[in-house]
């Protein structure tokens, strides 16, 4: 593996110049490289949106599925072949809007996957409607009087659901975000990393500078195993904390819970049909 391992040659991304997605792509490649994950061993599952295009731009197996539906295939991929590293990555609209139900239930299952959300607080690809995370008052051609719904808080929700790893990052901070992503990927179990990402075209409120000014990092003394403390931090919104909010190491992963994988991690594609047992079943009748 070398610096080029993840490059796909010349790519003309579909992203705007200055968009936070570029730096997330960059961070992703560095993270994977430093973790020495082989492209062939990695599957990135995404939905539809600007963020969701990310696997097209680096070397990896990918399943670029339907809008809102990254988590179900990601979960199935992991349990069908636990040897693969699985990342589910998409936008805020994708994961928390269309895909909200899968978000809840993926957390409940706790498969060992990393869920990365490019949170630009807007629908980018469809040109600037509010997303679930858009702030109160955010005006768009549809929310003409500004958003009136409580912004979705993925961090507090994930903690409420006792997700096993919950973090927030900022696309503008390569070093720190990389370190958070590394922890998330190395964590055994479901890990959500919500990444603040400026959309320079459709979100003129939550800009790079806005994120800079309105965030701070949880400090070293912060104890990420305390769920109540984590919740307290998660609902703080004068300034938005960044970092790892919560880790629950006591949970088994979904695949560990499956009887199938308790002996070994044999992928399903190696299954051999047991015709003798079928014959026995048939002979039994009902």
């Amino acid at each position, binding site marked *: 593996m070398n610096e080029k391992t993840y490059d796909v040659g010349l790519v003309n991304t579909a992203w705007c110049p200055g968009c936070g997605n570029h730096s997330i792509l960059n961070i992703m490649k560095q993270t994977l490289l430093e973790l020495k994950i082989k492209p062939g061993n990695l599957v990135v599952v995404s939905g539809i949106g600007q963020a969701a295009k990310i696997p097209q731009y680096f070397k990896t197996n990918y399943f670029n599925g339907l809008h809102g539906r990254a988590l179900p295939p990601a979960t199935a991929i992991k349990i069908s072949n636990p040897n693969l590293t699985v990342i589910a990555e998409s936008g805020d609209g994708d994961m928390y809007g269309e895909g909200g139900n899968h978000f809840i*239930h993926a957390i409940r299952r706790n498969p060992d996957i990393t869920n990365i959300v490019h949170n630009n607080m807007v629908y980018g690809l469809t040109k600037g409607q509010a997303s679930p995370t858009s702030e109160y008052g955010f005006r768009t051609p549809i929310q003409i009087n500004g958003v009136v719904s409580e912004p979705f808080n993925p961090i507090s929700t994930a903690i409420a659901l006792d997700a096993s790893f919950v973090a927030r990052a900022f696309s503008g901070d390569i070093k720190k975000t990389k370190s958070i992503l590394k922890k998330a990927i190395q964590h055994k179990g479901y890990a959500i990393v919500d990444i603040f990402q400026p959309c320079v075209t459709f979100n003129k409120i939550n800009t790079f500078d806005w994120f800079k000014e309105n965030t701070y990092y949880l400090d070293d003394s912060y104890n990420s195993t305390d769920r109540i403390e984590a919740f307290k931090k998660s609902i703080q919104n004068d300034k938005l904390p960044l970092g790892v909010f919560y880790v629950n190491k006591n949970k088994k992963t979904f695949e560990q819970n499956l009887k199938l994988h308790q002996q070994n991690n044999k992928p399903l*594609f190696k299954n051999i*049909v*047991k015709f003798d047992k079928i014959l026995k079943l048939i002979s039994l009748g009902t």
Partner: protein
Amino acid sequence: MDDISIVLCGEAGQGIQTVEKLFTKIVKKAGFNVFSTKEYMSRVRGGSNSTQIRISSKPVSAYIDRIDILIPLSDESLEHVKKRISKKTLIIGEDKYIKNSKTNNKIEIPITQLAKSIGNIIYSNTIAVGLLSSICGINKKILNNTIEEYFINKKKELVKNNIKAANKGYENCLEQINKDKIKTIISPPNKKNDNIILNGVETIGLGALAGGCNFISSYPMSPSTGLLTFLSKHSKEFNIIAEQAEDEISAINMVLGAWYVGARGMVTTSGGGYALMTEGVSLAGMIESPVVIHLGQRPAPATGLPTRTEQGDLEHAIYSSHGEFPKIIFAPGTLEDGFYLTQKAFNLADKYQIPVYILTDQYFIDSFYDIPKLDIKNINNINHFIKTDKDYKRYKITKNGISPRGIPGYGNGLVCIDSDEHDEEGRITENSDIRIKMVNKRLKKLSEIKKEIIPPELYGEKDYKILVIGWGSTYHIIREAIENISRKDIAFLYFKQVYPLHNETINYLNKAEKTIIVENNATSQFSKLIRQQTGYEIKNKILQYDGSPFSVETIIKEIQKMRES
């Protein structure tokens, strides 16, 4: 008589199912052929449900209206089946349930009292089994042995009491027989019956196992849940992942994820759940993923009649989903077809990288009968995925439209799939030349698929004038009706593959002077498909859409009407 129809009628939760299971085992052991089917309300307790058990010395496998023996087990029972009671119907049961019957052809047996005398009214069911056994002239030894087997994992006390109960029922009834109040109206044939008894959902489940199914993700929905239960039950033995999804959308997207890494996955659902899956089906079309869909039909629209039967989702299955891509739809009409077609479905889905449907319905799913042991000797599963090399391209343009399917983690290539239109490598493109190539490639698979369409099967006279057309679960009903009519000019054309249609279809139709379609729906969806594909209009339609299956009698009557008109 060598074919009697017994009907048990009572409330949900009374345990009629135990009678059904136990008694069918007993009669089969006694050498009879047996068929049983049930209709039940969408509720957990109360209401009125009924189960028909047909016993015969030759194979039986269709629902009939006729009731030879009725066992009412609740206040509402007589009312519930009143249309089916004739003068010849013998009604057996407790005084309070039979007293309102106007017929004299009835026998009182104090079932509850007998049960109580054994210690618990739950023994009523076994008492019923006993008395039915006695009417059918079944050897007591068979009765006792089967009960012992059936309760093998239960406490000794319970086994003993059940045997006692069965014998009480048996004796009590025998007494009546001896008094000449009833006759043993049927006797066991002098043969051994080595058949197995299965119902529709088990046969689909076994077919799935034989097809290498190792992943199912679904959301409970009547009448399709049984398949999820079946595969869950056998999940340990067969290394299957059986997951209850949070909703149907998740279910199908999970299954596509599973196929992506080389598992063999399926979903099981019914109309409303399937509606939610249709976007996922379209995804399968685009990423060219195999997927097997068991769609157990029930009356709609919307929630409709959740536990009843209909063939109303044929068009839904064919045309749902946005965009144009090939699929295959099987509609088994026999238990054997249920097994072999499901097994085949996995292999065709894998071969052509398309959705393949098993279209059943509540009637098919819930009907039991005995069939010869399924033969699995010649069954072949081929995994169509390949080991990738470094330059692997998931959507390579090939002559027949099929690109070798790689899976991540097997070989040196990368497997990139995309719900957007994509190039050979699986990357997004908006290039119109590539778009055209990809559409053509996907549709080209249809020509290959057409080469192996299962042809419709003709039963009855080859030189027919009247041709009755049916598909799926009506098979045995129509067949028995045709056999009953037994005239030289009539035949029955049975479709077990309903989509795409076989080319021979039009020739069969053209040969007939009169064609009659039989469908368990209100708009005759299959005849619309036939006309769309062949131009041929079937004008005579026997349609039923009240949630119940056709009876053999209805088909006979309707055909007779039409042949005269």
